Every structure is written in C-alpha cells, then in structure tokens.
C-alpha cells in the first residue's frame, strides 16, 4: 500500500498535489511546506537512505488511529470539506478545491475498502435535462482529480441530480450558489 502511494506521488511530482506526499503535521495546508523542499527532499532522502522515517509514519499520522466516522464528521478533520461549489454553468475547481481533494485522495488511497459517491447538482436556472448533465460533469471533474491521484475508479460512483435536489430553496443568487455543488458521500465503512 505504501509503495503504491509513493509511486503515485512520484508520478505527480511538480503538480500542486505534491503536498500529498509530505504527510507530516496531520493538518495539512497548502503552503505549510515549501514545494521545493518536498520534491528535492523526497529524492535526496530516498537516495541517502533516510527515507523510511518520513514515508509511512506521516501517512499513518494523518488518518490512522481515528475512526472513519470521526474523520468524516469532525470539523477539524482534514476531510471536513465534503461539498465543493461551482460557478454558473461551470465545472471548474479552484486551487483550494484541489488541495482539499488531494487530502480526500490520500484518504481513499489509504483505505481501499471505503467507497465514495460523488453527487453532482446544479442550480435551477436553465433546463432540467441540461442541468442533469451539468451535475454529472461537475462530479466527473472531481472523479478525475481523485483518480489522477491514484484513487481507483471502482471506489467512486458518480450520480447527478441536476437541479432536482436543491440544498437551498430560495430563488436568488445565494441559493443558486449553494445549489451548484458536488457532495462527497462516503460509504462502505
């Protein structure tokens, strides 16, 4: 498992997802560790034989020893961000979204028994069928981000509800913003 994980990290070096390889302080935030340090450090430490120390241990630190339910419900958990929002008629993720998803990817990679449903939604404007397709597109963008970081497709299911299941029931900008979303729903644990 750890080996696989390293392989993925190596493949994705140089991408913003890099911090996925750092492990470390248990509450990862982008910018905590300068990116250069990680990439250089990974190679150098691996080469001079001091790599064992940080590899598995940091990964363990991040999620191990905590019940999954707590990891998914605790507001301070690195997995607390489970809803991702979008602009009108857009499926683009922000840099912050990608960082949060990187943490979810590490979690899914560390727990292959856990399954994830990506539930895509749209706001009420426009047609219902186009919005159904748009909700799927948003969920699939997240699926792709996760799978590029090693999460197996078998772990993920994409479902779109289009505009049929709004979170907010108003007919205004704020409600629309809240309804253009993808929800991460963990199952199988």
């Amino acid at each position: 498992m750890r080996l696989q994980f390293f392989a993925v990290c190596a493949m994705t070096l140089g991408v913003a997802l890099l911090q996925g390889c750092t492990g470390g302080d248990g509450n990862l935030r982008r910018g905590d560790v300068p990116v250069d340090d990680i990439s250089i450090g990974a190679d150098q430490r691996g080469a001079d034989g001091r790599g064992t120390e940080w590899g598995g241990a940091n990964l363990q630190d991040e999620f191990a020893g905590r019940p999954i339910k707590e990891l998914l419900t605790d507001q301070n958990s690195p997995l607390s961000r489970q809803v991702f929002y979008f602009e009108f008629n857009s499926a683009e993720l922000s840099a912050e979204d990608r960082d949060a998803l990187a943490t979810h990817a590490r979690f899914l990679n560390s727990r292959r028994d856990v399954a994830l449903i990506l539930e895509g939604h749209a706001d009420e404007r426009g047609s219902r069928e186009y919005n159904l397709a748009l909700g799927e597109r948003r969920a699939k963008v997240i699926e792709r981000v996760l799978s590029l970081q090693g999460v197996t497709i078998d772990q993920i299911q994409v479902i779109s509800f289009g505009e049929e299941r709004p979170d907010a029931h108003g007919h205004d900008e704020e409600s629309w913003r809240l309804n253009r979303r993808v929800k991460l729903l963990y199952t199988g644990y």
Partner: protein
Amino acid sequence: MLLRLFLLSGLLLSAAAQAKLEITVSGGSEGALPIAVVPFALVDGETKTDIADVIAGDLQRSGSFKPMDSQRMPQQPQSGRDINFAAWRDTGVKHMVVGRGQMGPGGELVVEFQLFDIFSGRQLTGYSIPTTPERMRRVAHQISDIIYEKLTGQRGAFNTYVAYVTVEDDGKGSVYRLAIADADGFNEQLILTSMQPLMSPTWSPDGSKLAYVSFEKGRSLVFMQDVTSGERSLLAEFKGLNSAPRFSPDGRTLALTLSRDGNPEIYLMDLRSRNLTRLTHSHGIDTEAVFAPDGGAVFFTSDRGGKPQIYRLALKNSRPDGRPQRVTYEGRYNVRATLSPDGKQLAFVHGDGKRFRIAVQDLASGNLRVLSSTSYDESPSFAPNGSMIIYATDRNNRGVLEAVSVDGGAHQRLGLNRGDVREPAWSPYLSK
C-alpha cells in the same frame, strides 16, 4: 383509445391528487373574435358549471376568441328556432352557439349544439353528440374543437391532455407525482407517485404511453408507462445518466441521453429490440434530443461549442446523415428545443445571461421571438395544433404552468393551490 382513457379516469378518480390545478386566464390576442356561447342549461356534475362556460373558457384561452358575458346577452335561446337575430346584431358579436341536452331514442343523454353566423342568420354547423353525465366536460371540449375549426380553419386542441409533474412537501419530505389532466387543467389523474424526483415526461405519438425519467432507484433511469393500463417497463438503466426520452414520430424509436460511454450523448433505442444506435460524438454535453415531425432529423442541446446551443442532425434510416449543424445563434444559452407540429418553428429556453425565457425561432428565416415575459421559464411544449405553447415558470416562488398563444397575445396559468407544478407535456390528438 379515448374511450379506454375515460373508463380509466372513472377508476382513478378516487386516487386523484389532493392538490388541484387552478386556472387563471389573462390577456387576449388582438383581433380575437367576439362570440356568444349561450348557456345550454346543462350542468357538468363535477364542476357545477354550465357546459357553455366550459366551451367559452376553451375558446377564450386559445386567444382567438372573446366570449360574451352571458349577463349581457339580449336573450338566452337553447335552439336555433328561438334566436332573434335582429336583437343580436346590435351586440357586435359575429357568431353565436346555442345548445341543449336531449333525451335520445334509447333514453341516453344527447347534447345538441348549433353555430350561427349572426349577420346572415345562417347555421354554420351543428351536431348531436350522445354522451353520459360523467362525460359532459369531454363533450364540451369536442364542441369547442368543432367551433374552433369551423371559424379559424385550424383543428382545435381542446380535447387533449397535459402531462406534468407536481412536487409537494407532505411534512416528511417531497412527494413527486406524474399526472395528466384535461388541457384546461380539470380531471387530474395520477400516473405515478414517488418520493424521488420525476422528470421529462413525454407522450408517444398515439397518446397511449408516457416515457419519463425517475430517480426511484437512486439515480436517473428511463421508464415507459402505458397511460391506460398503468403497465410500465424500465427502458434504460445503463451506467451514468439515463435521461431525456423522446419518441420518434412513428413511435417505434426513442431518442434518449446516456453517459455510459463517458459523457452525455444522444442515442436512439429501437423500442422492440431495445438495440441502441449512438448518434453523437462530442466531448461536451449532448442532450434533450427531439425529432422533427417527419422523422428526418433530431434537434438537440449541445455545449460542444462552449455554451449550450441547439443543433440539428439529419437522419437517414435512423443513422446520422452528415454532421450536426448549429441552429441557434442569438443568446449565450439556448436549450430544451421542441418543434411545432408542422416542423417549421423551434421553441426553446432562451437565456440572455439574466433571464431564461421561452423563444420561438422560425427555422426557415432564423427569426427569433421571445414569447414569455417571466424570468425562469422551462420545458416548452406545443399544443398538437401548434396554436399554443405550454411551459413551466415561477410565480411568487411557486412553480406554475403557463400557456401562451404562439402569437404571444393570450396567456393562461395553471397553478396548484400548494406545491409546485412543472414539466408540462401537451398530448397529441387522441382521436381522429
């Protein structure tokens, strides 16, 4: 077919939805013909209205007629013999309808009516229609059809149905109902009730079946249901989206959207063999296919060019004939197309960045007209005679249906006393 539908309506009456559709009529076309529909002294048992009111209501909603208030009528004859034409000539009304209930030779109820040209005093048409008290409204709609056709030259579409979806919160959650009602909103009958969303009902060309999208198994799947027997089958349960069903004009094929190959594409399903033919290949969203009335093309929504627009793909033997051609250019968001019965006009949801309204584009000239004045309009559907379009919109945070005459003059609204109503689909003609 019609008869069977009736039998069923009797059976289903007790199961009718609690929330009732209410109709509001506003506006009227310029040049609407003044007409007098004299009370028949024949009352519809369900609504306690004289069937002359049902006929006058039909004619008014079409936007082509301006029925006279019965209080203002100089006399209220029930037969042509009793009409004093001289008294009517001062009213400015050009045509009048008189009618009555009679006992037929076998003891059955017969509704008789006559349409007169007031100026010449000539009878233009007249019929005796055997019926039953329960079928009174239906007979009224048939009479409206005959009058409409006689005076406009266009077939009437009053004796038709509208399918739609209602959503109501029953305290425990949303309840979704697929229902059909007469085109004037009366006589609602339930087709399906679900705790999960229902979408995109569409009629088979003979009016015997509805296809729709149901989330009852947790995701979007396409079902087909016999309107009279209630028998239904699951048509599409592939990985990914199963949505946007539309029947071909011959009823043998269903166009639908599937994302089983990665992203939403248009497919044709042969309804007998269930074999699929993939019609589109793009990285964008392709959905909401609808057949041209001659079956020679499908129109669909695609954002292959960046923003969603309507495209046309010619078909030959149920296969693509050439590449899709873009049809809509005005506005950044044009989706959910539907074709007029003559195939000459395309109605769709037209977004200008702020508002989403119903527009009609003449396919030959490309001219576009915005028909609705509301902001969040959806799901346009033509009456089978092409005279009106019904669509869903939002009024005071409620989902309602509105119908507008294609000339834009007359509006009618169908709303629930509680909850939302959406996704209207006007039925085809159900009888010759």
